[in-house]
């Protein structure tokens, strides 16, 4: 039997052909996505950057390449992956990042994994090595399978090598923290108690609130996220920390400009700027999920900043809260929800259904899918096109 830890792309294809059922894994930093009792083919030894020309704004690397290695190589040339990949310090690989479709806080400004992937080489269900997309920053030839692989969880093919677009990294960055806790209803809007700082353009109705009731921090956060997203500042990241009351805005650009931009933002919302070390630690903690319960489910839920208050009221502010922790990221476009234990999974599933939201379980605790799931015949047809013998598991398992 061929090695299931192949060291070359042709070995990978041999490994795929050697077993009737299998699933590819990288560093397994998101175990929930591969928590199946079937043979695994590891890309850990299929590692290394194969092409990198900074002048092209592109690189190509084998699927098992750790993101930390890619980060270092790009940083040497003043470049980076703007979507701010997650779990880099934990050892996440490039292939796993694509297959899981996970992007970090930085996806707010320029887009996520899907917006930077250009091309793939992959092994289809018949064991063929296929190349799709391209190696140049612009390409419209053929179907865009590279994008399809983003979030496809290794269920349609095994990624062998991936080409990405990169950007020059801004010379400096600044992180601002705004406390969204302690706002009181006032007239048709709300303001910070004992302070003059108003949340601009707020539309929160005070009708159902008792006089001077505290406005839920998530309502304030959601409103600021909406306003800041429309602003002129080109914010780099916009997240609500898992403490539920600290909103973080990151700016990236030339230092002289950031000073003025920060000052302008802080005239809109009361807050402070962090020291570099503090800011680096804060974003690193978010990217590595250090805030999450170590032994419970961790669920990615796409949503909108408008829908975030409902989600929070169902989870953390419910009459019987289940101690969920939530990191609201990318300007309120995605929530990462951590539950203390798998026992709470069913409740989360029901609540997401009620809110017409869906979730992806990243850890082996609890199910893979949460909430509502669309059922299309085309999903099966495309699966049969790429993997006619069902060598890889289905999306449902």
């Amino acid at each position, binding site marked *: 039997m061929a090695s299931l830890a192949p060291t070359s792309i042709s070995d990978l294809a041999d490994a795929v052909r050697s077993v009737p059922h299998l699933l590819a894994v990288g560093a397994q930093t998101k175990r929930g996505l591969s928590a199946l009792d079937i043979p695994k083919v590891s890309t850990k030894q299929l590692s290394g950057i194969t092409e990198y020309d900074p*002048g092209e704004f592109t690189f190509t690397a084998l699927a098992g390449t750790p993101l930390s290695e890619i980060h270092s190589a790009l940083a040497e040339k003043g470049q980076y992956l703007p979507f701010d990949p997650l779990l880099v310090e934990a050892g996440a690989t490039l292939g796993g990042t694509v297959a899981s*479709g996970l*992007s970090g806080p930085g*996806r707010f400004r320029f*887009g*996520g994994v*899907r*917006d930077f992937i250009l091309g793939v080489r992959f092994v*289809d269900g018949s064991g*063929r*090595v*296929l*190349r799709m997309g391209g*190696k*140049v*920053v*612009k*390409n*419209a*030839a*053929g*179907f*865009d399978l590279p*994008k*399809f*692989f*983003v*979030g*496809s969880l290794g*269920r*349609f093919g095994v990624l062998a090598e991936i080409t990405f677009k990169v*950007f*020059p990294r801004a*010379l400096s960055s600044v992180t601002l923290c705004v406390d969204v806790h302690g706002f009181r209803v006032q007239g048709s809007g709300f303001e910070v108690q004992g302070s003059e700082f108003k949340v601009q353009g707020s539309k929160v109705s005070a009708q159902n609130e008792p006089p001077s009731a505290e406005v839920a921090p998530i309502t304030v956060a959601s409103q600021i996220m*909406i306003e800041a*997203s*429309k602003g*002129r500042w*080109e914010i780099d990241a916009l997240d609500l920390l898992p403490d539920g009351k600290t909103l973080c805005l990151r700016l990236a*650009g*030339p230092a002289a*400009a950031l000073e*003025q*931009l920060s000052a302008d933002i802080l005239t809109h919302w009361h807050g402070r700027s962090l020291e570099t070390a503090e800011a680096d630690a804060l974003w690193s903690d978010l990217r590595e999920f250090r805030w999450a319960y170590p032994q419970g489910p961790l669920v*990615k839920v*796409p*949503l*909108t900043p408008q829908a975030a208050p409902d989600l929070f009221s169902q989870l953390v502010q419910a009459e019987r809260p289940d101690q969920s922790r939530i990191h609201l990221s*990318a*300007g309120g*476009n*995605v929530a990462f929800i951590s539950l203390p234990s798998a026992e709470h999974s069913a409740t989360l599933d029901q609540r997401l259904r009620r809110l017409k939201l*869906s979730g*992806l379980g990243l850890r082996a605790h609890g199910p893979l899918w949460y909430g509502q799931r*669309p059922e299309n*015949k*085309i999903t099966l*047809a*495309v699966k049969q096109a*790429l993997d006619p013998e069902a060598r890889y598991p289905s999306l449902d398992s």
Partner: protein
Amino acid sequence: MLSALTFLAKLLPPDRLLCRPEQLAAYESDGLTAFRARPLAVAIPETAEEVIALVRFCHEHKLPFVARGSGTSLSGGSLPVLDGVVIALNRLNRILRLDPELRIAVVEPGVINAQVSQAAAPYGLHYAPDPSSQPICTIGGNVAFNAGGAHCLKYGMTSNHVLGIKAVLATGEVVEWGGASRENIGPDWCGLFTGNEGLFGIAFEITLQLLPRAECFHTILAGYRTLEQAGEAVSAVVASGLLPGAIEIMDALALEAAKAAVHAEYPPGCEAVLIVELEGPREVVGVDRMRLDEIIAASRPVEARPACDADERIAIWKGRKSAFSAVGRLSPDFIVQDGVVPRRRLGEALRRIGIMAREANVRCANVFHAGDGNLHPLILFDGREPGALERAEALAGNILRMCIEMGGSITGEHGVGAEKRDFLPVMFGPDEMDCMRRLRAAFDPLEIANPGKMFPGAEAPALSHVGLHPLEQAGVIARE
């Protein structure tokens, strides 16, 4: 065929089902005027339900169909199928929802690209993809062909701005993917659908992301003695760590034409003009523009002209965006190519195109997106001259082969369409072609959705030489 028309007549009122030759003539061709084919009928639905009913009818009767917006495809993407149905989506032209809070626009496929930005402008937002045909091309066509524009390096193409799609697939299945959120779980179906060239089905509702309009621009135009110098300036800008919104180059022939057409003025004695544009908050542009101006000055241009105000900026872009139709006026016919090469090989690619054009005795102008290596050689010919079309096509083919050989692509933003379908198997191997065929079959087992595009082998439509598209002659659209 008659029976098909009888059935179709049950789906649409007579004034929205065109069958007479004089009615069909306008739909025989698109932006690639060298091809034409007469459809059986043109159906003009007004609602999503009618689009779904039409596709399901076509599926049931194995009747080929082609979705069409404004017909600006430069690759023959909306060329009709002989005796098939054209589904003209122009009347599905409603912006169903524009939500400035979520920064999204939910539109029907017949909405014009520029109208999205116009509708978003009062909220300080815009829709980023800006193909040169944006005053007339539709979002449905942009999605089908993954349209680009001058700002792709920083902002990406259409697919980077599509958040949600409701579509009827060629099997008649109705699907809904994505929505208002920028994030997603599971495979990226919107990403796969965008750029399908009409082979998967018809999107009848599209959710687009809107971005805040940049507060400040700094646009600089610089003339160079040689194309190589302009290319070196691009490399210097890219190496500097700046991320311009656009980097464009026009060559001498394109400059001549733009001068004649829109009275644009360029530094004299230049073989190439470079346009670089920075955009962002005023504080950032204020710092970055000093670096850019230094880089440009160090690249020893004949002359560098920063735009001093909004009018001067608009004038620079007007010259740039009209260049193609302007060049077109120099010649009765032309072919636009759309290949991509790695940026570092731009200079070499342009030299080789020049040599190949001279050897073939064909005139060729170049306007291109230098920032992303997307070439737009414009090959001039006179179709009335025996053998001229064949020579032009041979040159176009050689340019595409060169792009592939350099590690690039046969198309950056126009799509494969009818025009380049013979070159897809040059860029991709037999296994990849098989994989794409299987994918197509998953969406369209009967091969009724826009057959004859992207994949080689289908019967070629009649070739003819019909000169400029009427809208092109009027200067409304441009081929790039």
